[in-house]
Every structure is written in C-alpha cells, then in structure tokens.
C-alpha cells in the first residue's frame, strides 16, 4: 500500500510539473528577454535565448518564504562560517529571493544587491515581492565595477554572494583571478564568499583552479538535483584547527531558524567538502584568458 501511495504521489508530482506554464509577464530588456511564468503554485523568472530557457529564480506563490531551488539553500551554508554577517553584497539579483531570505534571517544586516539590468529589478519588485528598505539597497551596475569601486573606497563586507548569470553562464569578467583578488580585498577578516556555479562542463576544473589560486582551499557544496556547485571561500585558512568547531557551533546555532526555510543546517554542514578533484596543471581564468562561454560548451 505505501508503495502504491508513493507512485501516486510521483504521478501527481509529474503532472503538476507538466501542467501548462502561464506567461504573466514578458519583456525585452537591454540585455535579454525576461519572462515571468506561473506554473501551478510556482512562479519563475526566466531569461531566454533561442537555444535555451534558463530559470533564474522561482518562488512558491502560497509560501514565498520556502525556497524552491536547492542552490538557494546551499548558498546559505556560508552562514555556517559566519553566522551573523552585518554587511552583505549580492551580485546578481534575479527575483530577489536571496535578498528577501537573508533579510528575514538577519534583520539587522545591511544588504546591497548589485544588478546590471534595471528591468530585472523592476520585475523582482513587481512579481517576486522583492523587498527594499533603509537597509536593503539595489544598485544598477556591473558587478565588476561595483567591486572595483568598493576596493578604491576601502569598503569591507562580511558576506559576498556571487549569483550573476547572463542566461548562458557567469559573465566571463566575473570569473577571473583578478576579479577574485578584488573580492578578497573587500572581504572582512571573517568574511565569506559564496559563489553559485555549475559542476557540469570542463569549466568546473578551470573555475576550481582559479578559486584555489586566490583563496587556497575552499568548500564545495553540491546538490545533485540541479548540478549546482556552491563555492564557499574565506580570507583565512579553512584548514585551521578551529574551523571544524566553528561549523559545528554555527550549525547548532542556526538549526532552528534555518528550518523555517526548510533548510537543514546539519545536512548543509555535512555537504561542505574540501575537494581537489581537478588536474594540477589546469589553466587559470584571468582577465587575459577567460573564454568562459566557449569552455562551458565543451
């Protein structure tokens, strides 16, 4: 009987996925075609190219607090290294889900969302309940320029999240050694960088080598379902003796509040792995060499 029930559930789930998507907003911005689609209870922001449609951000309409994508949950593993960041930068707004979640988790934190495309910000406000106030600002600017200007102004942030995608992959000037060195300069001593990347394609090895070169060892956090790979890096050595203790402590500390978002902090902690699964002689991505879009197709 339970088996039958299970198969019924799976069938129901399947049909809920194939149910027809309802396009409720569609526009052509300076950079891309943006579509907002409703499919049952799920609302998604999509960037279109002819070849592919990529889902940038999704919410449950009935329960916007609950996170749809596993990668959004995985990004929160950054909090296990620094449980109370006061200043946060998110590069790549999407639907603003991440900003909303972080604000609910950390009501006192200042959050700066950097988004290149003003049209995306408008859509996030209108259709995804993207929330702004005194503490939550949106800056319409290229992420690289924002970071470079921040280095000049000697600004520092406790948490930097890289989540910029152009519908194809991460923009190539946001993946280089030079960019990561700039990021490193604007991280506080206890600051954490969390970058959302994919684990498929040969780009994985180049990306890993580049992050390792700038930050030393970093954590890989991988979910199998969408093959996202989150990189969690810090200014300080994550192999230090007290690092594991910090993770344990923060995992316990955050367990209750994270469960509100259907995130299991213990599970996250166990998923954080220091890996070296790329060839030693892998070529680094630099401002001189970053054929990112070509490599991601190989």
């Amino acid at each position, binding site marked *: 009987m339970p088996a039958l029930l299970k198969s019924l559930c799976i069938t129901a789930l399947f049909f809920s996925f194939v149910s027809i998507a309802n396009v409720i907003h569609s526009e052509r911005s300076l950079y891309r075609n943006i579509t907002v689609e409703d499919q049952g209870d799920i609302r998604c922001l999509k960037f279109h190219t002819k070849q592919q449609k990529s889902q940038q951000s999704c919410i449950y309409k009935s329960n916007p607090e609950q996170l749809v994508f596993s990668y959004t949950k995985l990004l929160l593993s950054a909090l296990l290294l620094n449980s109370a960041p006061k200043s946060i930068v998110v590069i790549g707004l999407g639907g603003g889900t991440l900003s909303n979640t972080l604000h609910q988790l950390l009501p006192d934190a200042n959050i700066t969302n950097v988004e290149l495309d003003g049209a995306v910000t408008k859509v996030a406000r209108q259709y995804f309940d993207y929330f702004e106030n005194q503490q939550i600002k949106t800056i319409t600017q290229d992420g690289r320029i924002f970071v470079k200007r921040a280095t000049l102004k000697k600004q520092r942030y406790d948490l930097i999240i890289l989540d910029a995608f152009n519908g194809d992959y991460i923009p190539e000037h946001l993946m280089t050694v030079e960019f990561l060195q700039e990021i490193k300069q604007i991280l506080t001593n206890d600051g954490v960088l969390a970058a959302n990347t994919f684990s498929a394609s040969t780009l994985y090895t180049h990306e890993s080598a580049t992050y390792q070169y700038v930050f030393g060892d970093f954590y890989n956090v991988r979910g199998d379902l969408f093959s996202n790979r989150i990189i969690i890096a810090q200014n300080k050595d994550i192999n230090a003796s007290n690092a594991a203790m910090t993770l344990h402590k923060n995992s316990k500390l955050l367990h209750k509040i994270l469960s509100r978002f259907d995130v299991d902090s213990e599970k996250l902690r166990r998923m954080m792995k220091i890996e070296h699964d790329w060839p030693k002689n892998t070529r680094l991505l630099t*401002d001189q060499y970053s054929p990112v879009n070509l490599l991601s197709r190989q």
Partner: protein
Amino acid sequence: MTNKFIYLLAFCSGFCIMGIELLGGRILAPYFGSSIHIWGSIITVFMLSLSIGYLLGGKLSTSPVSLKRYGVIFIVAGIAILPIVYFAQPLMEIIFIHIEDSRYGSLLASIALFFIPTLFLGMLSPYSVRLLTTHQDHSGNVAGKLYFISTLGSAFGTIVTSFYLVLYFDLNNIVFSFSATLILLGFTAYFQRYSITALTQ
C-alpha cells in the same frame, strides 16, 4: 604579383582591425563592465578613427605613391597597437579612478587605446586603391575588389579571434601577434622593388 601582394596586405589589415575591435570588449570589461555602452564606445571610436583614416589615406594618395610609403603606414600601425599590450592596465586604472560614469570612462579608454592604430589602419584602404589603379576607368572596379578583400579579412578576423584565438591564447599575445604581423608585412612592402605606374587617363 604586386597586385596579389597588395590584396594580401589589405586582407591582413582588415583581419587585424576587427580582431582588435573584438578583443576591445574583453580588454575594457575588467574596468568598465560588459554593459551595452561598452560596445557603443568601442564601435564609435573604431568608426570615427576609420573615417578619419580614410580621409587622410585618400589625401596621401594624391602625392606620388610608393610601396615604401605603404609599408611605412603598416609599420606605424603595428607599432601604434603595442601600447594596448604594454600600457592598457595603468591607463584604464587612471581613467577608472577619475571618471565615475562607465560610459565616458569606456569612451575615453577606447580613444586612448584604439584611436591611433585604427586611424593608420584606415589609411591603408584608399592608399591600396590608388596603388592598384592603373587606369582611371577601372578605379571603381579596383575599389570594389579591394573592399571585398579587406572586408573579407575583417570577417575572418572576427570569427577566428572570437571562436578560436581566445580559446588558446592570452589577449596580449593575440594583440602582439597582430602587431608583429603588420610590422612584418610593412617591412616586406618597404623592400619590394616594384615601382607603381603613373595613372593613365
């Protein structure tokens, strides 16, 4: 023989112009981002410098023409490309610090890096037309053929650079190779012993 050589040179200059223009976006991105106005700046500067180059090249072709002078333009263009390799970083750094608006920053950076070399490369087209024209009645035909070859070179320069060169080489190495090619071709032209015939009416 001379004609084929001049067409080859025109092909290569077309190749280099578009190769550099394409890399321009990548060169500027670390300082000025990848917004649409970056391409606005780059294309504006290339069009502007080419247009002035055409004008100056045409003017120069009214005085006695020679392969020597033609070669010198190639050599100067090749040398004018080198600052992109050696001074782009500090130059863009200074512009980035002084100009907040990335539109004008990228425009100024494009002018500083690309204006001079593209101007000299632009001079080559009308000068090539004059070198190839032996009879006034054929001038249109020669111009058509010349633009066919040099624009074909531009098309190749665009696709080869964006599809393959960036996949294997550093930006600076690619730009340096363009410069070396132009200088080498310039010297080859300079030491050619063919003389250019005066125009027959």
